[in-house]
């Protein structure tokens, strides 16, 4: 069982090599003038957590860091930085950061030729609270299928591909934290704890603590409108009041607008000061999208949004949903 100091997943030497590669890469990019800025992570006092770093000078490349301590997603910063920076902007990040960037590109918020994406293999983002208990990664990291770089995607370069193997087999959860990393809500349905009244009560309990701080929206790469409907007064969908119905409306609208566009980065939940399991909710919706419309990996931004296309053979609400063919054996 790894002690509190040692990060989960990342073998120390792998982490060291990875970090070196990242710094060298950033430095040369800036030196050769390939890019005007590199967005990554740097260690911040007092706990050495990774905070977003916006490196513009080759000299500063040395401060870049990688690893479980980098809990903050950085992809969305492209939205501002590409407008503010002369020259291209590079993102050196994990799979979820890369997907976040691709989300912005798919939404026409960032031009592909403005950015350079460098994909670093990842063994999950640590949950600060779990450090003491042997360390654990965020729950959504356990479902993550982009921890290791996928080669052959245009516009995306890979850093440390040879180290991916070492991370593939990394343990992500310290024994002390198994319970902490279990999904907090299960799919609705017979027996599910969030089905019907019980579920409604649970969500009410969570939403009662929602401060309407908009942190989920602010960090969500799929929430990238300049003007947000959640603040619109005409039409006014959501009132400023934090009465329960307004909370449900707020989170329903967000979940629905992000449906099929969520990149499974977990930023919403990480940023939520009230600890609402927003990521779990999105993952349920993603599973629905796959089940209902046969869209595999809906969290990977593609040519079309699942709700922007249709299939004439989609399941029909008037008829019971499709079921797989009956068994012949036994």
């Amino acid at each position, binding site marked *: 069982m790894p002690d509190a100091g040692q990060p989960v997943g990342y073998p120390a030497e792998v982490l060291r090599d990875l970090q070196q590669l990242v710094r060298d890469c950033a430095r040369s990019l800036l030196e050769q003038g390939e890019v005007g800025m590199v967005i990554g992570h740097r260690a911040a006092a007092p706990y050495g957590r990774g905070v977003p770093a916006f490196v513009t000078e080759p000299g500063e490349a040395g401060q870049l860091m990688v690893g479980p301590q980098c809990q903050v997603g950085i992809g969305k910063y492209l939205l501002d930085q590409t407008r503010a920076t002369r020259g291209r902007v590079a993102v050196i990040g994990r799979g979820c950061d890369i997907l976040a960037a691709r989300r912005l590109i798919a939404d026409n918020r960032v031009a592909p030729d403005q950015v350079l994406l460098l994909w670093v293999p990842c063994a999950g983002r640590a949950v600060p609270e779990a450090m003491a208990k042997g360390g654990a990664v965020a729950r959504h990291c356990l479902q993550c299928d982009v921890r290791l770089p996928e080669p052959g995607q245009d516009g995306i370069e890979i850093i440390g591909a040879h180290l991916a193997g070492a991370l593939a087999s990394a343990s992500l959860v310290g024994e002390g934290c198994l319970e902490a990393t279990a999904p907090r809500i299960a799919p609705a349905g017979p027996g599910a704890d969030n089905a019907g009244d019980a579920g409604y009560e649970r969500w009410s309990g969570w939403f009662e603590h929602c401060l309407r701080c908009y942190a989920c929206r602010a960090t969500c790469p799929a929430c990238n409108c300049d003007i947000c409907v959640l603040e619109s007064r005409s039409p006014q969908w959501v009132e400023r009041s934090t009465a329960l119905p307004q909370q449900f409306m707020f989170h329903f609208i967000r979940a629905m607008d992000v449906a099929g566009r969520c990149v499974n980065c977990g930023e919403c939940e990480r940023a939520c000061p009230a600890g609402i399991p927003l990521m779990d909710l999105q993952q349920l919706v993603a599973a629905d999208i796959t089940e209902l419309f046969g869209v595999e990996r809906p969290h990977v931004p593609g040519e079309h949004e699942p709700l922007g296309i249709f299939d004439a053979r989609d399941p029909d609400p008037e008829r019971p949903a499709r079921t*797989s*063919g*009956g*068994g*012949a*054996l*036994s």
Partner: protein
Amino acid sequence: MTNYVYYPGCSLGSTAREYQRSVEAVAEHLGLRLHELADWSCCGSSATHGAERALALALPARNLNLAAAAQAAAGASSDADTGNEGGLLVPCAACYSRLRSAQAELNDSRDLQADFDHATGEQWLGGNVRVRSLVEVLWRDLGPDAIRHAVKRPLAGLRVASYYGCLLVRPPAVTGWDDPEDPVSLDELTAAAGAEPLWWPHKVECCGAGLSISRRDIVGRLVGQILSEAIDAGADLIVTACPMCHANLDTRQDIASRAAGRPLRLPVLYITQLLGLAFGYDQRQLGLGSHLTSTAAVTSRLSASAREVQ
């Protein structure tokens, strides 16, 4: 040297020994390393697949599970997209068809997989074993050129009717490596061996092997048509890659002649026997003596043409 997990199937140990021997000879000559699948069992073809669907899926699935394990062990690739390496090599067209079909069916249905797990007490792992027909391997993995280079004694002047039968290239959804109605793989292999492949209409007509015992009348008619067409096309022999077809075509020439009302005598060889001859193996090594219909016509012709060469 390419490694293959090798599934001989029942007939190669019995009625089709000569196929077995010629396969091994050809494999050796071409540098295919065959690792016989340990503890393999009946593939469930012929009798079973008509009789009981459950068993017809469970039997091949069991063998595919073994193959998956074996492949992992042998380090042979079991990954579809890593090109021509490895796979489960099956010489018998019937076994090949059964194994591939069962695999496709199971892969398509979670329910069937669950039923299999339930029925056998093991978990379905055979999903991405690459089940390969011997002909497919010779034609696709090695290719006619490689064969041509391996030839020591070109079979010049030998006119060959390639007979594919029902199972080797059908159904396309399951096989998919040669045209199901107008296949060419065997023809190109025979051509590579220096022989002359003939176009003839009955490449994939049914020979009635399934009825070989129960309805000799039908078998007589079907075999009769096949042999007549081959003979009319000017063939010196028929080559096949299916023990069922071979047994049927080879042993039913009497009733076929009766049905056709004309004497029909034509040697039927396995493709590997033909290639073996071209590779310089002698008749005994290839079991050419074990056919009911004499293959002397073929071998004499060869020695004749060989003499002409000198």
